[in-house]
């Protein structure tokens, strides 16, 4: 209940204050969720094996932090997401640029992109495990698929959204194909590329958890699955909370500011 007091204290809100109120308005619904959860558990007297209270989940969490298992799972999951995403960006951005500058390539690939984008993510898990076995390769493949199509498609949108006059201007100032790529196409498409990465990472995060339940023996998805085998409902819920919080942190602290910076600083407004 400190929020209203803080907002009312200063007539001219400073940047720090604005950040604080931003964080409070962001966290408040989550706090309400926790309160409602605890209240519901107490009122309904639901069996902890079906749905545990806040205290039991926190205890399970503290335990997994103490014995180091949480860090092991989080580390494994984050490492996979990062590797799969980096690979997808390395392939998706050049392909998107190529589609953006060549109408023939984009006409040919667009139906394929439509087809595969609906399959992006978990639909690939069965065949990925056939191809790569149960393990690292299959999971990286699933993440790659989740990020690749979105990044390539957004890069295409970004490149083809660059006004032709900007490319003409660069050409008449002496830019060749490579300098055009470096100085115009990539920076011009960057806001869209960042948006693509942000969207793709969302898909990847979901695909990762699903794949880890099936195809591995470490990671957050595996942690949930293992806990289920031991009827540790409180550990399952804790794992779900961690998955959600990790994503919120990545999105809010890294991706969203990056997207805002590139778009706002250059005054680019993209639809």
């Amino acid at each position, binding site marked *: 209940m400190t929020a209203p007091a803080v907002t009312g204290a200063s007539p001219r809100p400073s940047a720090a204050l604005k950040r604080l109120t931003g964080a409070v308005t962001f966290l408040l619904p989550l706090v309400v969720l926790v309160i409602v959860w605890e209240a519901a558990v107490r009122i309904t007297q639901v069996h902890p094996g079906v749905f545990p209270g806040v205290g039991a989940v926190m205890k399970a969490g503290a335990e997994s932090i103490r014995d180091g298992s949480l860090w092991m799972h989080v580390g494994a999951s984050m490492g996979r997401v990062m590797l799969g995403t980096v690979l997808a960006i390395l392939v998706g951005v050049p392909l998107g640029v190529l589609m953006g500058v060549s109408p023939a390539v984009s006409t040919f690939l667009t139906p394929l992109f439509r087809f595969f984008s609906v399959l992006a993510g978990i639909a690939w898990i069965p065949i990925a495990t056939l191809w790569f076995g149960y393990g690292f390769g299959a999971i990286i493949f699933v993440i790659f698929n989740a990020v690749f199509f979105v990044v390539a498609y957004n890069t295409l949108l970004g490149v083809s959204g660059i*006004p032709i*006059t*900007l490319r*003409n*201007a*660069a*050409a*008449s*100032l*002496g*830019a*060749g194909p490579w*300098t055009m790529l470096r*100085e*115009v196409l990539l*920076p*011009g498409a*960057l806001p869209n590329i960042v948006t693509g990465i942000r969207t793709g990472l969302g898909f990847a995060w979901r695909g990762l958890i699903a794949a880890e339940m099936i195809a591995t023996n470490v990671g957050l998805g595996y942690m949930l699955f293992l806990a289920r085998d031991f009827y540790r409902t409180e550990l399952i819920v804790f794992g779900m909370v961690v998955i959600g919080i990790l994503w919120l942190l990545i999105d809010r602290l890294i991706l969203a500011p990056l997207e805002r910076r590139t778009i706002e*600083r*250059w*005054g*680019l407004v993209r639809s």
Partner: protein
Amino acid sequence: MKSLSIRNLSKTYFDPYAGKHVTAVQAVSLDVPEGEFVCVVGPSGCGKTTILNMIAGFIPLSGGEIVVDGRSVSGPGPDRGVVFQSHALFPWKTVLENVAFGPKMRGVPLADREAIAREYLALAGLAHAADRYPNELSGGMQQRVGVARALANQPAVLLMDEPFASVDAQTRMTLQEELTRIWQERRPTIIFITHDVPEAVFLANRVVVLSKGRVLKEIDIDLPRPRVWDALIEDERFKTLSAQVLQLVRSA
């Protein structure tokens, strides 16, 4: 030596709605000697932009030849600088980086190209805006940067397609006076396209009137320089020339 020579330039477009070819430019020939300031005027749709885009190399020719400094050209190149109607500055580069872009493409080292860029920004009266981004500038300032960016690359010809059409009347007059001052200081060869007759007469050594894709008439503008609006607005010679050009444009 002639800086720019256009011989028998023509352009036909395919009109997908009418399902037939339309001729936008027909056998246009024009010689622009080094250091001349030529304005091309004509009613909307007479082919001004098409001619400029062909000279710039942005669209292919249907016929004819474009010769810059004795060499036949095709495709865009740094010998022909362009100032666009919509400024076309790179939004992700600062004003200084925009102006330094041409020298950068030529491989000029960072310190040198920044010095060049600062020189041309000062020439355009924008030394103070070097570190800003284009979206932080007014329309008039954006066009000044566009002029500085094109000039900093020292092109053989400067091509301008209605660069002042989208700024307010006061700013436009200032920009016109500044452009004549810059032209007098540096003597670039300029082809300036406009449908504003007083603007053409104010700026040019020679006004070329187009009509339906052809050159209708060329008129020498023998007004003294420096040209400033306060003096010219009441000038009899300026009035006579403007009336003469206006009549040609309206008959076109």
